[in-house]
């Protein structure tokens, strides 16, 4: 069994074993073991990848290809490069932490963990696929579990949020499907056979007219899940209504599928279309960064602050990807990683606060650091990391993005970059105000004096997520070199 397919087999096996679980205790232990194995595998993959890279210079390593539908030339084909490897590690960490955070999920626990792990299964499959059809299948597998997860275990207007989210994401994949078919039927432009394989299509010169039509479809298909303005409207209500682990997974991981898809499919397979449409989407991305930041300032509910902040930071990823320089792309990938961990941290923390105080309104909270020292400390650190304090991953990411975006002597790009850089200040405003209000100052409600302190499973979850943030922040060279090496072939297609 090859190392990559294990990443989809382990979740499936975990789900199958979960069918036999009878209560919360059994469900969470099974889920924990399954995802712990997955987490260990993903760390192992990083080292195995580095070792393999030393001897193997193919674009993708650990590849495997199995013919699936002969008549369409559809294969189950997998492979990874540095970008996939780090994103797989992100997913495994966030899911693993999510299991800890959901330790007390007592309403239909078995079904909850099954849906969560099915979601993870789809994401892992997406990151390892190198065949467009299989990629799309894994992309859509997430539809069923996400609706159930938000609709059954969520809070607030959960039914409406779940429906809106599911339909918007399905609509996005509808566009993506048309785009994929367009790419497929143009994959024989150089006289070869029709194929869905990403690496092979990349060698074909798809006609410009087709690229101009299908690039926006594929791009928007991925950008909707990546939170691009104006397709982001599913995100605030969806994240706010979802249960904690689901928000963590969704904002932390699922939204990265968008950036990854743009990088791996839209920009790589349709480079000429990308160059033509880049400026248009750059304006949307830049606007999204500013809009998300200002939107976050206005919010009164902690989860909504985080949701809009995510829109802002993920638009930054798309912004960087469209700048098409090496440094900007490195920054985009690191930002995907960094934001993934940080937003998962935030949602976990908000969940912990809400579980104790039963409110998410900033006005009603205050002085929590006094009664929740551990959670409070992590909250402050996360906030500082999020706004880009050096020493944490957020700074490394944003540094790369802004330097890389400014590298290009194009005046239009530079003006947009300057506008987007100003969002750093806005981010600082909402982060510091939020953190300061709820953590510092006097205790807002005398009843908060007796709030239970952080439990062991909450602490483990938080620490798990914080460690990578610090590692990337303090020792970024290893990761960024790894990513730069893998970006090279993709960048060459566009230059």
């Amino acid at each position: 069994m090859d190392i990559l397919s294990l990443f989809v087999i382990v979740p499936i096996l975990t789900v199958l074993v979960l069918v036999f679980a009878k209560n919360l205790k059994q469900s969470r232990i099974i889920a924990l073991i399954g995802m712990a194995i997955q987490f260990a595998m993903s760390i192992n993959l990083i080292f195995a990848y580095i070792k393999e890279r030393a001897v193997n210079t193919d674009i993708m390593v650990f590849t495997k290809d199995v013919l699936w539908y002969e008549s369409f030339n559809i294969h189950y084909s997998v492979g990874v490069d540095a970008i996939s490897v780090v994103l797989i590690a992100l997913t495994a960490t966030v899911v693993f932490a999510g299991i800890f955070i959901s330790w007390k999920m007592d309403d239909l626990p078995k079904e909850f963990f099954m849906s969560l792990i099915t979601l993870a299964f789809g994401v892992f499959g997406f990151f390892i696929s190198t065949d467009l059809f299989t990629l799309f299948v894994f992309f859509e597998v997430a539809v069923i579990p996400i609706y159930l997860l938000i609709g059954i275990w969520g809070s607030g207007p959960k039914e409406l949020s779940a429906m809106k989210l599911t339909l918007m994401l399905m609509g996005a994949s509808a566009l993506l499907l048309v785009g994929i078919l367009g790419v497929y039927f143009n994959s024989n432009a150089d006289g070869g056979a029709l194929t869905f394989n990403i690496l092979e299509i990349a060698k074909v010169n798809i006609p410009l007219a087709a690229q101009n039509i299908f690039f926006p479809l594929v791009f928007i298909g991925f950008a909707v899940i990546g939170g691009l303005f104006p397709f982001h409207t599913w995100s605030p209500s969806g994240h706010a209504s979802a249960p904690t682990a689901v928000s963590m997974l969704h904002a932390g991981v699922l939204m990265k599928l968008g950036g990854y898809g743009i990088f791996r499919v839209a920009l790589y397979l349709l480079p000429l279309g990308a160059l033509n449409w880049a400026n248009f989407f750059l304006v949307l991305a830049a606007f999204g960064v500013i809009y998300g930041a200002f939107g976050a300032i206005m919010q009164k509910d902690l989860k909504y602050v985080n949701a809009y902040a995510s829109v802002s930071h993920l638009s930054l990823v798309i912004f960087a990807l469209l700048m098409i320089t090496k440094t900007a792309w490195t920054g985009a990938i690191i930002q995907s990683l960094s934001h993934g961990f940080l937003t998962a941290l935030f949602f976990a923390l908000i969940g912990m606060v809400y579980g104790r105080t039963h409110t998410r309104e900033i006005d009603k909270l205050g002085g929590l650091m006094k009664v929740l020292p551990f959670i409070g400390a992590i909250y402050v650190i996360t906030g500082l990391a999020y706004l880009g304090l050096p020493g944490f991953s957020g700074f490394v990411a944003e540094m790369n993005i802004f330097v890389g975006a400014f590298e290009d002597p194009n005046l239009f790009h530079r003006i947009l970059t300057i506008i987007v850089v100003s969002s750093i200040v806005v981010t600082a405003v909402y982060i510091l105000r939020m953190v300061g209000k709820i953590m510092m100052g006097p205790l807002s409600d005398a009843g908060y004096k007796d709030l239970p302190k952080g439990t062991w499973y909450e602490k483990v979850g938080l620490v798990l997520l914080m460690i990578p943030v610090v590692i990337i922040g303090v020792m970024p060279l290893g990761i960024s070199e790894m990513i730069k090496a893998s970006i090279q072939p993709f960048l060459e297609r566009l230059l």
Partner: protein
Amino acid sequence: MRSEIGLLAIIVLLVVFEVFSNKKQKAAIIPAALILLGINTIIGFLPLASGEIFGGMFKTNALLHLFKTILSAGVLILLLQSADWLKEKVIAENKATEFIILILSSLLGAYYLISAGDFLMFYIGLELTTLPVAALVAYETFKQKSAEAGVKYILSSALASGTAIFGISLLYATTGTLYFDGFSEVLTMSNLAILGFIFFFSGLAFKISLAPFHFWTADVYEGAPINVASYLSVISKGAAVVILMIVLFTVFKPLMPVWIKIIYIIAIATMFIGNLFALRQENMKRFLAYSSIAQAGFILLGLLSVDQLGSATVVYFVAVYIFSNLGAFGVVQAIASVSDKENINDYEGLYRTNPKISMIMMMALFSLAGIPPLAGFFGKFFLYTAAASKGYYVLVFIGVVNATISLYYYLLVVRAMFLRKNEDAIPYFKSKLYMKLGLIMATIGILVAGLYSPFYDYIFSISNSFLN
């Protein structure tokens, strides 16, 4: 001819049994019929030589043979799902054997319909498919809705068949022949031919519930017993789609510029009408009726690529659709048989009391919506591929938009079952063996038909057997 003779033998045996059995032995009819039909279906998996008989009126080839076996399996699943209802409610009224005889006769008609080699056999098949079902629709004779549905169905079918045969007569007038072979050589794009084609197409479109010939569907499905609605939505529709495909690809080739445009517009209209009306339905049977209208619109997308890919995707999608719809209708039947409840609101909170049945319904609905890894996704995706292969990207776009709209109303049922809590939820019930078997078979079809690629590859490899 093997499947037809087998089926005819079963029907004759059943008639004989009905005449010569006494009241106590009547209950044995159900397992007997199921076993015989099962044997006939399994024999259908053995290969059959292609050819034609009756001077060219009856044709068979590998694709048709496979499709007949699929239809037979569908009817088998349907009868398994109906067996408990027959045993409990219908045998008392002495009508159980007739039910099975009528359904099998209709299936026989479907066999003749798709094997037609000339317009006369086509018409015989069409009528043999329709008439028994007309009796079946009104089966619960003392319920006003059922009788009303029966009258609606028989009157509309009569009109549709009349229109079809009028079209056939016009086509005969232009070409001088009724045989499919060689018809395309003598057919010219004359006004009379186009007129004849339009009348013929209208009659057939009625059976497939395409817009604007769909008005009978919701009322008839709502009034008929659930199994009969199920039969209409899968078997009757499926057979009509296949013969439409064969006729359009071979006989009406010279008129291709005309019928491509017609199919294009009708596909869009059918998808939108089916979806928009389904949004507001509260009765599960009407809901599934409009859903099946929309699905018929999707099938037309495959017809636009007039080649091997088109025919393979259409046959594959119909097979997948048969499993999905039988799954959904089966669950509706199971729930109605214990509680008499057919409205979406009554399904609220079903997951907490009956998890397995809710899961089956969810899988069937998501398969209809086209969500992987269920078979419906692959069916829809391949249909889009067929349409895109000839450049109809705008139509594919409209198709996927409609798929998204359809997801909304399928989610309404899922929402009721899974998300909502209900004190008066339908209490836990255990289905009997036949229903369990029927539901399991449908579910296996939904799960496996997509992931198991040799099924589609086989269909593709035999799909050029009727194209030249």
